[in-house]
C-alpha cells in the first residue's frame, strides 16, 4: 500500500507531522507512520501494520467504536470526518486528541491523522494555525481531487462504452454506468469485489470471433497486465444458460506506476453487436448475391461511383476474358482497357460507357458486337440507396450469340415458311390452271368444258359458278350452274332467265369486256347477272355469296358469254387474275369447240352432198347406160334396128360415158378439196398397171398421131389404190397425147426399195415456167381453153390422188420441147395417220 500521495508537504516523509500520527487503512490492513512526539510513544509497541481496532483502541481507549464508525462512514461515502477524543479517561495524563479521517483520492481506503490538540500557546497556536492552514489546503486539494474524480466518473458514466478499473489483484475499483447496465446481476459490479474477472466468468461465457470459448487469461485486461501493454479483442459474451449474447470489442489498458509496474488496468468494451450482426448480414447478403449472380446467366459487375469494381462474378472475367491483373486492380478503367480491344467498334463502345457514367441515373440496354463473332447483350442501371444515395452502377452482360443465332434461324424459318406458303399458293394457282387446261383439252363439247371448269373452280375460287353464253343470234342464255353439293340450288340458278337489259354486272362486263366484281343485293329487284326479280339474288345469298365476280369470256375479241363466280366476299387481286386466266382459257376452248362443231357440221354436210350428188347424178346415168347398152346388144342381132339408130345409140353411149367421167372428175375434185378422197389400198403392180393403161390409151394416141413408148421394167409393187392409179395414168397419158403435138410419148416406171417412180414425157408444146405451178390447180390449163377442150381438172386430180397416196408429182418442162411429169410414190403406201386424217 502506498501512503505518500496525500502528503501536503512535498518532499517530506510520509505524514511526518510533528507530534502527529498518521495511518492509512486500505480496507484490510493498517499502515502506520509516526513522527516524533507523544503519540509515537502511544503506538510504539504496535507493529507497523496493526489491526485497525487495535490502533483505534490505542488512540481512543474510551470510545474506539466511535472512531471505527467514523472510518466506515468515510469509507462508505468518502466524506472527511473528524473525531475529538482522549488518550485516557483520567484527565491528568490523557491527551486531547483529534483524529481526522478522509478518503484518499484515487485509491481505496482512508487516511487517518491523529494529532494532539494542544492548548493554544503562542508557539503552539502558530503551529496549530499553520497546521490548520495546511489542513485546509489539504482539504481543498482533497476536495478538488474528489471533484476531479467525480467529474471523471460523470464523464465515464456518460460514455456509451463500458469501462471498468481494476487493481492488479483483480479487485474492481470502478465500473461505469454503461458497464453496470451491461452486467447482471448487480452484485457483479460491486466496487471492491476481488477476483472480478473470475467472478464474472462464473456468470458469463465468452467466445472469440471464431466461436472458441475464452478463459479469463485470454481477455485483454489480463493480457495487458501480463505484458504491460494495451490489448484488444472482439469477443462474444452472454450469460450462462441464456441464448442472448453480445458482441463486444474489448480493450485492456494497463496503468503503470513510476517503475513501470501495473497499478491498475482499465477495461473498456464497446457493444458492437449491431455492427457485428450488420456485418454478418452483409456477409450473408454478399454470399446470397454471389450465389445469385453465379447462378444467373448474366455476368455481373458492380462499379462504385469512384470507378472501382465493387463486385464481379467469375462469369464476368470469363465472358470478357479479363486478365487476372486487371481484375486484381479493382479499377473499372483498367478492365475497360482490356475489353475495348475485343470490340468491333471500340470507339462507340467507349463513348456509350462514358455517357452512362456521366449520367448516373441512365439505364442502358445494348448489344455489343465482338471481333470474335460473339454478340454480348449489356444491361446497366444505377444502384441507389433507400434515400436515393448513389452506390454506383451495376452491369449485366450476357453472351447472346446463340440466342441471336436461334432468332436468326427462327426468322429464316419463318421466311422460308412464308415463301413456301407463297410458292404453294402459286403452285396451287398453276395446278388449277394446268388442270383447267387439261380438262379443256380433253373435253369434246362445250357442256363438258363448263361442267369440268365449274367442278374445278367451285370450292377453290367460288361457292357457285354460273355460265351464260351468247347464242348465234346474240341472245344470252343461262347454260350451266354449279354450286358444289347444292344441286337443287344449282338447278334453280341454271333455270333462271337472263335479261341483258338489266344494266348490271353481266351486261356491263360483256359490254366493256372487263371483269366486274359486284355485290349481290336481294332488294335490288334483279340480280347482278341480269335475272329479273330477286329470286337469283336470294338463292346466292342462301349460299352465303355476297359478291359476284363476273368474268367475260372473250376469244379473239369476240365475246362468247361470261363465267360468274359467287363468292362470300369481294375477290382479291390474285383471285381475280386467276379467274380471268381460267376465263381466258375457257373462252378459247369454247371458241375452239364451236369452230370444231361448225367445221364438223360443214364436213358432214359436204359428205352428205357428195353422197347425194353421186347417187343422184349416177342413178339416171345408170338407167341411161343400161338403155344404151341394151340397145347396142339388140343391134347386134341383125335387122333389129336401123344402122342410123345404131349409130345414134353408139353416140349416146359415148356421150353418156363422157358425162359419167366428167361427173366423176367433179366429185373427185370436191373430195380432194375436202381431203376426203377415199382409198382402197391393196398391193398393186405399177408396171403392169402402166402397161395396161398404155395399151388402153393406144387408140387415142394413134388418133393424135403419137406413139407411146413404154420402157420395159420388172414388176414394181406397192400398197396403193388400183382405181386411183388408173386415174392418174389415164390423166397423165391423155394429157401427154393432148399436148404432145403428135410426137412420141415416153413412159417409164422405176423403183428403189422405198419409192416407185412413174414418168410420162412428151415432146409437145411444153409449159412456160411461170405457168408450171398453175397447171396443178383446178380449172387451169397451160394453154387457152379455146384450143384444148376439157375442164382442166386432170392434173389437179392427179396431184390430189398422188398426195393422198403420200407421194408427189413433179413437172419439168420447156416451152417448145415438151414436158415430163414424174410421179413419186412411197411403196409402203400412205402414212396411216394421213389416211386417218383424210377420213376425218
Amino acid at each position, binding site marked *: 500500500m502506498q501512503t505518500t500521495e496525500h502528503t501536503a508537504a512535498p518532499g517530506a516523509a510520509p505524514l511526518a507531522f510533528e507530534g502527529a500520527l498518521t495511518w492509512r487503512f486500505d480496507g484490510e490492513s493498517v499502515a502506520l507512520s509516526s513522527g516524533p512526539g507523544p503519540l509515537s510513544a502511544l503506538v510504539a509497541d504496535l507493529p507497523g501494520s496493526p489491526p485497525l481496532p487495535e490502533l483505534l483502541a490505542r488512540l481512543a481507549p474510551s470510545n474506539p467504536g466511535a472512531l471505527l464508525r467514523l472510518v466506515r462512514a468515510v469509507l462508505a461515502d468518502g466524506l472527511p470526518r473528524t473525531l475529538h477524543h482522549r488518550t485516557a479517561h483520567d484527565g491528568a495524563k490523557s491527551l486531547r486528541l483529534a483524529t481526522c479521517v478522509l478518503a484518499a483520492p484515487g485509491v481505496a481506503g482512508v487516511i487517518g491523522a491523529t494529532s494532539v490538540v494542544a492548548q493554544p500557546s503562542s508557539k503552539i497556536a502558530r503551529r496549530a494555525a499553520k497546521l490548520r492552514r495546511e489542513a485546509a489546503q489539504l482539504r481543498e486539494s482533497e476536495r478538488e481531487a474528489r471533484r476531479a474524480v467525480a467529474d471523471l466518473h460523470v464523464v465515464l458514466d456518460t460514455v456509451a462504452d463500458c469501462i471498468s478499473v481494476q487493481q492488479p489483484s483483480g479487485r474492481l475499483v470502478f465500473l461505469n454506468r454503461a458497464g453496470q447496465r451491461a452486467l447482471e446481476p448487480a452484485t457483479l459490479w460491486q466496487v471492491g469485489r476481488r477476483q472480478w474477472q473470475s467472478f464474472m466468468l462464473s456468470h458469463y461465457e465468452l467466445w472469440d470471433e471464431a466461436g472458441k470459448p475464452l478463459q479469463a487469461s485470454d481477455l485483454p485486461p489480463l493480457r495487458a497486465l501480463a505484458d504491460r501493454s494495451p490489448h484488444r479483442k472482439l469477443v462474444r459474451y452472454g450469460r450462462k444458460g441464456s441464448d442472448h449474447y453480445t458482441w463486444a470489442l474489448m480493450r485492456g489498458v494497463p496503468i503503470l506506476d513510476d517503475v513501470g509496474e501495473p497499478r491498475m488496468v482499465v477495461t473498456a468494451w464497446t457493444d458492437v453487436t449491431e455492427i457485428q450482426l450488420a456485418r454478418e448480414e452483409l456477409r450473408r447478403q454478399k454470399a446470397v448475391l454471389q450465389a445469385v449472380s453465379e447462378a444467373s446467366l448474366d455476368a455481373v459487375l458492380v462499379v462504385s461511383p469512384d470507378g472501382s469494381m465493387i463486385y464481379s462474378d467469375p462469369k464476368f472475367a470469363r465472358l470478357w476474358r479479363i486478365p487476372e491483373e486487371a481484375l486484381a486492380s479493382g479499377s473499372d478503367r483498367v478492365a475497360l482497357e482490356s475489353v475495348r480491344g475485343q470490340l468491333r467498334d471500340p470507339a462507340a463502345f467507349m463513348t456509350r460507357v462514358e455517357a452512362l457514367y456521366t449520367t448516373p441515373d441512365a439505364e442502358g440496354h445494348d448489344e455489343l458486337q465482338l471481333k470474335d463473332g460473339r454478340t454480348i447483350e449489356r444491361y446497366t442501371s444505377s444502384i441507389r440507396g433507400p434515400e436515393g444515395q448513389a452506390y454506383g452502377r451495376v452491369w449485366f452482360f450476357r453472351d447472346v450469340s446463340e440466342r441471336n443465332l436461334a432468332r436468326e434461324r427462327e426468322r429464316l424459318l419463318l421466311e422460308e415458311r412464308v415463301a413456301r406458303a407463297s410458292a404453294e399458293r402459286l403452285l396451287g394457282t398453276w395446278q388449277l390452271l394446268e388442270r383447267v387446261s387439261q380438262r379443256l383439252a380433253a373435253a369434246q363439247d362445250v357442256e363438258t368444258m363448263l361442267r369440268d371448269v365449274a367442278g374445278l373452280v367451285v370450292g377453290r375460287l367460288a361457292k357457285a359458278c354460273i355460265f351464260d353464253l351468247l347464242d348465234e343470234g346474240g341472245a344470252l342464255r343461262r347454260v350451266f350452274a354449279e354450286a358444289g353439293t347444292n344441286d337443287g340450288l344449282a338447278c334453280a340458278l341454271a333455270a333462271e332467265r337472263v335479261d341483258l337489259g338489266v344494266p348490271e354486272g353481266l351486261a356491263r362486263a360483256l359490254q366493256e369486256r372487263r371483269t366486274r366484281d359486284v355485290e349481290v343485293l336481294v332488294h335490288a329487284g334483279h340480280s347482278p347477272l341480269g335475272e329479273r326479280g330477286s329470286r337469283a339474288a336470294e338463292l346466292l345469298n342462301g349460299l352465303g355469296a355476297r359478291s359476284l365476280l363476273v368474268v367475260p369470256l372473250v376469244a379473239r375479241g369476240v365475246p362468247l358469254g361470261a363465267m360468274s363466280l359467287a363468292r362470300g366476299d369481294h375477290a382479291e387481286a390474285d383471285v381475280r387474275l386467276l379467274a380471268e386466266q381460267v376465263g381466258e382459257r375457257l373462252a378459247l376452248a369454247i371458241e375452239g369447240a364451236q369452230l370444231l362443231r361448225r367445221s364438223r357440221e360443214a364436213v358432214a354436210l359436204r359428205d352428205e352432198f357428195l353422197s347425194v350428188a353421186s347417187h343422184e347424178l349416177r342413178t339416171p346415168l345408170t338407167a341411161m347406160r343400161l338403155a344404151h347398152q341394151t340397145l347396142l346388144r339388140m343391134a347386134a342381132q341383125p335387122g333389129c334396128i336401123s344402122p342410123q339408130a345404131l349409130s345414134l345409140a353408139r353416140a349416146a353411149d359415148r356421150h*353418156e360415158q363422157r358425162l359419167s367421167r366428167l361427173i366423176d372428175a367433179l366429185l373427185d375434185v370436191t373430195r380432194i378439196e375436202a381431203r376426203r378422197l377415199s382409198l382402197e389400198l391393196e398391193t398393186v403392180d405399177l408396171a403392169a398397171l402402166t402397161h395396161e393403161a398404155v395399151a388402153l390409151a393406144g387408140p387415142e394416141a394413134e388418133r393424135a398421131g403419137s406413139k407411146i413408148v413404154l420402157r420395159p421394167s420388172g414388176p414394181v409393187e406397192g400398197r396403193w389404190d388400183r382405181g386411183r392409179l388408173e386415174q392418174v395414168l389415164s390423166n397423165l397419158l391423155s394429157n401427154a397425147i393432148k399436148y404432145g403435138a403428135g410426137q412420141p410419148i415416153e413412159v417409164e416406171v422405176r423403183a428403189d426399195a422405198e419409192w416407185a417412180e412413174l414418168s410420162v414425157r412428151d415432146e409437145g408444146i411444153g409449159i412456160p415456167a411461170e405457168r408450171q405451178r398453175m397447171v396443178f390447180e383446178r380449172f387451169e390449163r397451160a394453154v387457152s381453153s379455146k384450143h384444148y377442150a376439157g375442164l382442166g381438172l386432170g392434173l389437179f386430180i392427179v396431184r390430189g390422188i398422188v398426195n393422198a397416196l403420200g407421194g408427189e408429182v413433179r413437172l419439168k418442162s420447156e416451152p417448145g420441147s415438151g414436158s415430163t411429169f414424174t410421179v413419186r410414190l412411197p411403196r409402203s403406201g400412205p402414212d396411216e395417220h394421213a389416211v386417218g386424217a383424210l377420213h376425218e
Partner: protein
Amino acid sequence: MNEQISTVQPAVSPWPEILVVDDDADVRGMLADVLAMEGYRTAEADGGRTALTYLRSGHRPAVILLDLMMPDMDGWQFRAAQLGDPRLAGIPVIVLTADSREHQKACELGIARGLRKPIDLDQLLAAVAEYRAG
C-alpha cells in the same frame, strides 16, 4: 309401191328369179327389163321394207340387186334384217352404189358383189350369172 312381178313357181321354173330393190322407178324398171330380156324372172321392190315383206312371204330369189340409198329402209338396214333372218341370209346380194366409200363398206358386210353406178351392162349380167346358181 310396185307389185312384185312373179311368174310361175320358182321350183319348176327353169329361169331363176332376180329381185331388184331400188327406189328409183326408172332404174328399177330398166334393170328388170334388161334382166327379163336375158331371160331372168324378175321381181321389183321400191325399198328395203317391201323387199323384206316379199321375201318373208316365202319368195326365194336367186340373187338380190340392192340399191343402198333408199328413203324407206335403206340398203344397210335391209341387209342387216336379211342377215338376221336365217331363212334369207343365204341369198346372194349384189349392191349397186354410187359412192366408192359405200362400195367399200358393202364388201365388209359380206355382200357378194358391189357394182358402181352407172352400171355397165356386161358387168351386171356377168355378176348375176355368177351368183344365180347360188
